[in-house]
């Protein structure tokens, strides 16, 4: 039977990236995927004829440009198109538009609050300063702060130097920032509640934290630190949907001789003499390899496809307690026409960006309260994008599809498990809310897919449907990700590694986790590194 050099479990974008860099180094590489399609949470799926949903992740700003360039993903069909502004809808129906150009944006803010229009400049400078530092760590393996290995010491010095360069006052601010809530952080800048609500929403997306929960300020930063072609904070759409990213990476993988097997759920990682030696598929088939890389989240990896007895003491418990709470839902809607929204000018540019149904800080916090009680709010936060307004390949001409991301949606309901009826009720809540801001919206609906954490976990395998493969709180970031002592992609069983978003630098379609992990694997194998350095705009 064929033995591979490396098996990667899970054909999500990080798994494919990891495999590509291993294959590029000459390793005989196999990616094993449970579904009959690749991409994990970066997929394009035709769920209604003619409509192609990016039914999990839907926009992209963290994709490492250096990887895109190095693997020539454009040749393999990937084009990332930045989309323009975003409109935030307030409780009262008021809107605030984030125009792409500084002049119109300033005027828009000034119309609500001259004070806040000025403060926006300071906020952007501060966020950029914080983001610069984090961005520099994305394609670096976090140092182990307890280690005296030259490499760890060198990396620690690098971090200390970058940190020190902020200046004394900013160091204090930065430390404070990491433990703050998004709302309190924004209180220092703004007085207008709708502006605060507009700016705070990235602080709750994907996380089981509220706008007033400590730690949500970092989530906000995590969402705005990305860029498209150096335009910091911009978001892009993958032409052809998010699946275009996965397919482009798979194209690069196959070019380097890597293989992909779909429809092959892994049942167990085989461990012999404390070494990972292969996997057993649910079909019973065994596939052997010298290296096993899990792209599954940490909880699923250690509690579902490994035996507790194969793990050193403590790991199972750490994995069981890994913070990976389901808090988001997704409603994908096929529309017969572009929806029209209240209180917006007939400006085709701003009407084709994103829509944030934020309401107010209070409304967002109320939605969080519902989540804590094991239910969903009847006034949830919704982040919407209409990719078809930009991308001619994802819906028939003149027709549209709208991606709606909902915060919050519990993984488990207080009144018992999710049922198809409850799922549809949840979807109805979302549609009802949009209808309030876009009268006639319901009449445009051609098809709708509603996904709660239950569906996301069942189909993609993300525990509780957590989009980051684990909360992005400071106890689970950098050298704490996924667990303290295991942040360098090597896992407690020899020859076993992780490469998913449970590892540094965490969630987002960045390919950084997969690439960083490949670099560590190649180092252990004493193979030349194939992973490029990051292409940083901040130098």
């Amino acid at each position: 039977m064929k033995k591979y050099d490396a098996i990667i479990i899970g054909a999500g974008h990080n798994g494919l990236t990891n495999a590509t860099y291993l294959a590029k180094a000459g390793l005989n590489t196999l990616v094993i995927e449970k579904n009959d399609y690749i991409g994990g949470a970066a997929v394009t799926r035709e769920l209604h004829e003619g409509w192609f949903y990016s039914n999990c992740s839907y926009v992209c700003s963290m994709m490492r440009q250096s990887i895109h360039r190095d693997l020539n993903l454009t040749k393999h069909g990937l084009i990332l198109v930045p989309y323009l502004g975003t409109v935030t809808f307030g409780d009262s129906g008021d809107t605030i538009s984030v125009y792409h150009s500084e002049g119109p944006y300033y005027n828009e803010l000034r119309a609500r609050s001259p004070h806040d229009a000025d403060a926006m400049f300071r906020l952007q400078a501060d966020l950029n300063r914080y983001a610069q530092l984090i961005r520099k760590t994305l394609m670096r393996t976090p140092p182990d702060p307890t280690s005296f290995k030259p490499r760890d010491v060198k990396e620690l010095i690098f971090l200390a130097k970058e940190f020190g360069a902020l200046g004394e006052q900013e160091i204090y601010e930065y430390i404070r920032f990491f433990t703050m809530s998004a709302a309190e952080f924004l209180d220092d800048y703004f007085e207008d509640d709708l502006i605060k609500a507009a700016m705070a929403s990235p602080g709750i997306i994907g996380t089981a934290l509220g706008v007033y929960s400590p730690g949500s300020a970092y989530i906000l930063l995590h969402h705005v630190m990305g860029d498209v072609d150096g335009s910091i904070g911009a978001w892009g759409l993958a032409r052809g949907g998010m699946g275009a990213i996965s397919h482009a990476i798979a194209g690069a993988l196959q070019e380097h001789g890597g293989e992909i097997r779909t429809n092959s759920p892994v049942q167990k990682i085989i461990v012999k003499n404390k070494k990972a030696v292969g996997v057993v598929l649910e079909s019973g088939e065994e596939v052997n390899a010298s290296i096993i890389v899990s792209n599954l989240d940490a909880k699923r990896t250690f509690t579902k496809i490994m035996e507790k007895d194969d793990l050193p003491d403590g790991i199972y418990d750490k994995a069981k307690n890994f913070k990976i709470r389901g808090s988001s839902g997704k409603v994908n809607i096929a529309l017969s026409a572009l929806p029209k929204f209240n209180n917006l000018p007939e400006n085709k540019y701003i009407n084709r960006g994103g829509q944030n149904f934020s309401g107010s800080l209070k409304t967002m916090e109320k939605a969080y309260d519902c989540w804590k009680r094991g239910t969903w709010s009847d006034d949830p936060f919704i982040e919407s994008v209409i990719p078809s307004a930009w991308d001619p390949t994802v819906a028939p001409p003149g027709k549209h599809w709208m991606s709606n991301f909902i915060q919050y949606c519990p993984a488990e309901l207080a009144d018992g498990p999710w049922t198809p009826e409850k799922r549809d009720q949840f979807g109805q809540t979302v549609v009802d809310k949009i209808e309030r801001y876009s009268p006639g919206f319901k009449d445009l609906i051609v098809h709708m897919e509603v996904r709660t954490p239950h569906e996301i976990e069942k189909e993609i395998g993300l525990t509780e449907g957590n989009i980051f493969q684990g909360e992005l709180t400071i106890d689970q970031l950098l050298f704490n990700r996924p667990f303290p002592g295991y942040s360098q992609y090597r896992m407690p069983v020899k020859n076993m590694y992780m490469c998913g978003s449970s590892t540094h630098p965490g969630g987002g379609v960045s390919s950084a986790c997969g690439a960083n992990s490949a670099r560590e694997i190649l180092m252990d194998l004493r193979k030349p590194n194939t992973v490029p350095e990051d292409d940083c705009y901040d130098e």
Partner: protein
Amino acid sequence: MNNQSKFSDEQPKLSPFHERQAELNIRDAWSVWNGYKFADYYYEAEYEYFCIRNTCGTYDISPMQKYLIEGKNAESMLNRMVTRDISNLKINRVTYVLWCTNEGRVIDDGTIFKLDAEKFMLTCGSPNLAWLKKASYGFDNVKIEDLTDNLAALSLQGPTSYSVLSKMGLSDIDKLKPFDFMTTDLDGVELIVSRTGFTGDLGYELWIEASAGINLWDKLYAAGENYGIQPYGEAATNMARLEAGFIMPYMEFNEALKTVNFQHDQTPFELNLGWLVDFKKPIFNGKEALIQDKKNKPKYTLTKLDIEGNKPAEASYIYSEKECKNEIGYVTSAMWSPAVKANIAMAMIKTEYLDDELWVEIYYEKELRQYDKVVRCQVKDKPFWMPERAKLTPPEKY
């Protein structure tokens, strides 16, 4: 159409599409081309660039110079003028050409449309009427007419361009191959559609008499509504053409007739356009000088560069070593390519150094401070952007 103000004599002329374009020029970003008011961009250069690569956009090429050359000797006259052999150009075909001084220096580049056996249209970026007249001396029965002000021209470029023209109801558009053109009619007015462009992508150019320009625009934009149609200006054009590897006057070449300093203009070989020079042709303007230029190898060669890092190498010098002692060339155009995700440039490099290591010194600014870095670059033979879809006939339909 003309300006009505009391300064109208001094104001730029307005293109046949101006009324519609002015409405869409949200940023009021105008410049001037050949005396016409002309958009630098409408909304945002990068957005418009992405329309070319993702959906489609229109670019007003009315200010381009358009000449009708007619008569029994029209072909002989043009064939004597340009470096390429056009004697085998078929009717309803377009070809890209250069013309040179007697010294073999490039005057301009342009396209020739063969409308009929004795009827051609030549288009180019700068006025060339005086040179055309000069070139026609000695050829009897050649009539040259400047069509520029009477012919509206609009370039429609991008992957959905074919779908837009189909939706407009232009029949047989599916049969048009690259560099083909066809004559059809739009509400009783003759419309020429050529499968040509300056973006390296799928695209067409539409030619119609000036008075019918607005009707063409309206029909096109009605058909294009669901295909992401958007006007784009000079800034987006410049990005797309650089990715496609096309040269631009006053970037890659200095028009010979306007050049003051000795050999500060270029030969076709220097511009890496030797394939446009047909020495099998018995005679053409500049032939002797070009034979020598090819034999002696041109002093410089225009090259496409893939540069490390992401800082555009604008106005940079090229060196043969990292220490930047031996200067061997200069960058003519540079940009970060959003589609390809590469730091691309075109540069004039001394031919003898082409196979050596190439280093570029890049200057950039960060919050008022100047920085510089020296990085490696690689010569690329093929255009940075050359998608399959640009060549497919019939093209992909959306």
